[in-house]
């Protein structure tokens, strides 16, 4: 969260790079872990949770950025929290009303988006210091970043656990998502471990390890390229 102290908004490409990869909420900042691990027994659940979180992030970042001028340090936390809680309640109501099946699966964790550290983290670190547009962009980037990790972990656990991917997507998200459903390994009884709590932790652990490998590989490539540049000159 080093950008917290920079007064000037970072460029949009930085915002997106950070959100999606470098400073990803789940993999870089290690925030929002509870929903990340709790609901990702399947890719579909992950997607649902991701979208809900994205919506909340977008709304809260925007609102906080708007009111940032009038907030004082003494009541900053409660004010932000009230704001977040209201937005979450609204989203909760909306999902309950219009995506009831999904609501039944995600359950308590929608309400808990309030205390999803990621939301508060973004609000504090970014939105309360930046104008609306970058705040929205940041929310969007972080939200998408969070969502893809949710989906990735959900997919890892689902494939290993039951051999399917996006099972029940149509039931939970609506008929238009039927195309997502697929069976990856037919007749697979599954490794139970991966859909039980231990599997969640380990999946995230391995995902971060993979991210590291990719980062390292990219860096090595960059260095090699730089070196090659020197050679030709």
């Amino acid at each position, binding site marked *: 969260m080093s950008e917290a102290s920079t007064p000037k908004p970072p460029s949009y490409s930085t915002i997106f790079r950070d959100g999606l990869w470098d400073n990803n909420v789940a993999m870089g900042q290690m925030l929002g872990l509870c929903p990340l691990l709790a609901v990702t027994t399947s890719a579909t659940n992950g997607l649902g949770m991701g979208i809900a979180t994205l919506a909340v992030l977008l709304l809260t970042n925007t609102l906080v950025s708007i009111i940032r001028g*009038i907030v004082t340090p003494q*009541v900053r936390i409660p004010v932000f929290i*009230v704001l977040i809680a*209201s937005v979450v*309640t609204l989203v909760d*109501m*909306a999902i309950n*009303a219009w995506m009831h099946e999904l609501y039944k699966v995600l359950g308590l964790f929608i309400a808990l988006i309030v205390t999803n550290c990621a939301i508060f983290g973004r609000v504090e670190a970014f939105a309360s210091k930046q104008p609306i547009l970058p705040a929205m962009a940041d929310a969007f980037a972080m939200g998408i970043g969070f969502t893809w990790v949710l989906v990735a972990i959900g997919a890892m656990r689902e494939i290993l*656990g039951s051999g399917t991917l996006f099972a029940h997507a149509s039931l939970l998200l609506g008929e238009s998502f039927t195309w997502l459903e697929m069976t990856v390994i037919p007749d697979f009884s599954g490794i139970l471990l991966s859909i*039980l709590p231990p599997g969640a932790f380990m999946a995230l652990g391995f995902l971060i390890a993979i991210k590291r490998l990719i980062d390292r590989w990219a860096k090595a490539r960059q260095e090699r390229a730089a070196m090659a540049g020197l050679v030709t000159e």
Partner: protein
Amino acid sequence: MATVLNPTYRTRLGYQAALLGGMCYLMSMLLIGGNTATHELIDEHVLNDKLALLAQVMPASMYDNDPIADSQLITDSEHFKAPIEVLPARMGNEFAGVALNITVQGWGGPLNFIMAMDAGGEILGVRVITHKETPGLADKIELDKDDWITSFDGKSLANTSHIQWAVKKDNGEFDQFTGATITPRAVVSGVYRGLQFYQQWHQQQSTAQSTAVAKAEESGS
């Protein structure tokens, strides 16, 4: 009120209070709006969920009353630790059957199922509503995963003996799942006790009813 931008005002207590108060005010208005927009839908969903569940075990054609409205909670410590919800079905004024919402102890925690019987005490259907059993192992009690749960259909105290009300491993009638016998055992015994409860309850009801009828007749005559 909350637009005073002069920093000296900001440190005043009134400002802090007004800021948080104002925020709460605004947000509660917003939520009231949200609530008005959605609460009917949500209530409907909740009701529908229940009806849908009921419909799975008891065809809607069987009754014309509102079992949910007529439901009552009964504590019967002889058979069940937790109170059970009894949803009576009537056709006209005639008793047509009953659905029981029962919670027993499974392997991983409470196991909540609904079972329905016709007036004769024969099982119409059993469905597990919520459970904490191990996914992939014991979740074959869900209809989605396996049709094991339908093996109760048509069973009654009359056509299945006390000994038969058990899993095969315990020399009973019902299959167990390999490696997870405890869960089916819990369901089978829960259903069996549900039937016993029904029998008792039904007798009480009819005696109560007959005495009531008798009383009514008495007073009428």
